[in-house]
């Protein structure tokens, strides 16, 4: 009971930190749309072309948005000592990473998810693909959050390991992207591809608390 309360107030804290108001979420969305605009401007107004690359644009932006915010993941809390305080308040490092991953998902990825339908209109993505896009995006973005957690916790440690962090993220994100984009273009294989995506998510999700937790522990130890 008390633990549950602590979790709730963890998110209250994250909310306070991330949001000075609704305008922050809105800024996220505006950022998304502006990026779409910029793509369109550079590609040109041709309907055909736009709807071919539409899905790719949405996916790239997702990737961008999750890399954009990586620094916020642990860095700030680590530097100002709040990670430690959260730990001393009774959360193991592994558990902190789970909470943080969801918080990243919630405050960074979800606003994008919400703006996808409108983006579909703008990008001429057919309505029947919307479902696929949502599913793949939902799974993919959570996977990216986990990967982001791993790589940014590795970045806290010695600079020596930086390559590892980036490489891990890259290796895992390539299949995610192949399958997610594949889902949308080859609708007949939907189920099997979704299963693969889901499998990747599970693996990454299971590794995450262990790997990131260890990194957090080590970096606090060496601080």
């Amino acid at each position, binding site marked *: 009971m008390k633990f549950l309360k602590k979790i709730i107030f963890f998110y209250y804290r994250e909310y306070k930190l991330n949001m000075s108001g609704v*305008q922050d979420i809105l800024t996220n969305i*505006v950022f998304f749309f502006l990026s779409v605009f910029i793509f369109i401007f550079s590609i040109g107004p041709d309907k055909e072309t736009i709807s071919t690359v539409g899905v790719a644009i949405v996916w790239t932006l997702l990737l961008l948005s999750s890399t954009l915010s990586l620094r916020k993941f642990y860095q700030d809390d680590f530097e100002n000592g709040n990670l430690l305080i959260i730990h001393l308040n009774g959360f193991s490092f592994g558990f902190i990473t789970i909470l943080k991953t969801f918080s990243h998902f919630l405050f960074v990825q979800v606003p994008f998810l919400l703006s996808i339908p409108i983006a579909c209109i703008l990008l001429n993505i057919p309505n029947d693909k919307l479902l696929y896009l949502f599913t793949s995006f939902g799974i993919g973005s959570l996977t990216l959050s986990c990967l982001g957690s791993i790589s940014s916790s590795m970045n806290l440690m010695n600079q020596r390991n930086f390559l590892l962090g980036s490489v891990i993220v890259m290796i895992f994100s390539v299949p995610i992207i192949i399958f997610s984009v594949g889902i949308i273009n080859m609708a007949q294989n939907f189920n099997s591809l979704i299963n693969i995506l889901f499998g990747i998510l599970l693996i990454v999700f299971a590794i995450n608390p262990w790997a990131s937790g260890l990194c957090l522990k080590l970096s606090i130890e060496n601080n």
Partner: protein
Amino acid sequence: MKFLVNPSKFNEIADYIFKPVLVLSILFFALGLLFSFYLSPDDYQQGSTVRIMYVHVPSAWLALLTYAIMTFYSIAALAFRMPFGFIFNTAVAPIGAIFTLICIISGSLWGKPMWGTWWVWDARLTSVAILFIIYLIIIFINLSFENRVVREKVVAIFVIVGSVNLPIIKFSVDWWNTLHQPATISKLAKPSIDPSMMTPLIIMTFAFMMIGVAIAILRIKTEIISRKSNLS
């Protein structure tokens, strides 16, 4: 005319004209809706979807007009150190944003039956979308910058730079041939529109304008008060 630049004068006048403006706007709205739904004819090409025009065109005009006035005030505020301009910018930007949003939504609703899609990337639509984003950014800057002196200057400069977009919106239909309707009503020579459609359009424009002025008065007054109480 001092009330257009002086906060305390503005407060005086505003108290006088607020109620009449509100009443007028309600009157015009009632009249306009009556006209546009019952008293105006269907278009011979577009059928009754033409009635969207009575929302679309006024909101589009007002979106542009609002921004134009903001630009004017920003220049005045920066050049003559006139704080009322800053107050005006802060207060009026959301109103402009809403007009723009109405214009975009009504335009898309109109576009679906006319062009077959909600959205195309033609110059007018795109530039209006940019206008909307500019309005949003102005609002965001107002909300997130703490230092007021900096914030209002940033906003004013941003408004001025963004005003490049206005002529693009206005003339995009002439410069590039696009799907969107070229100027039919607002042509400088003789408008090529039937008077039976012209009347409700003008009435609706007035209605939009009045409601805009009413909300603007309220917002400017609150802004003045909040500045007095919180000097920072």
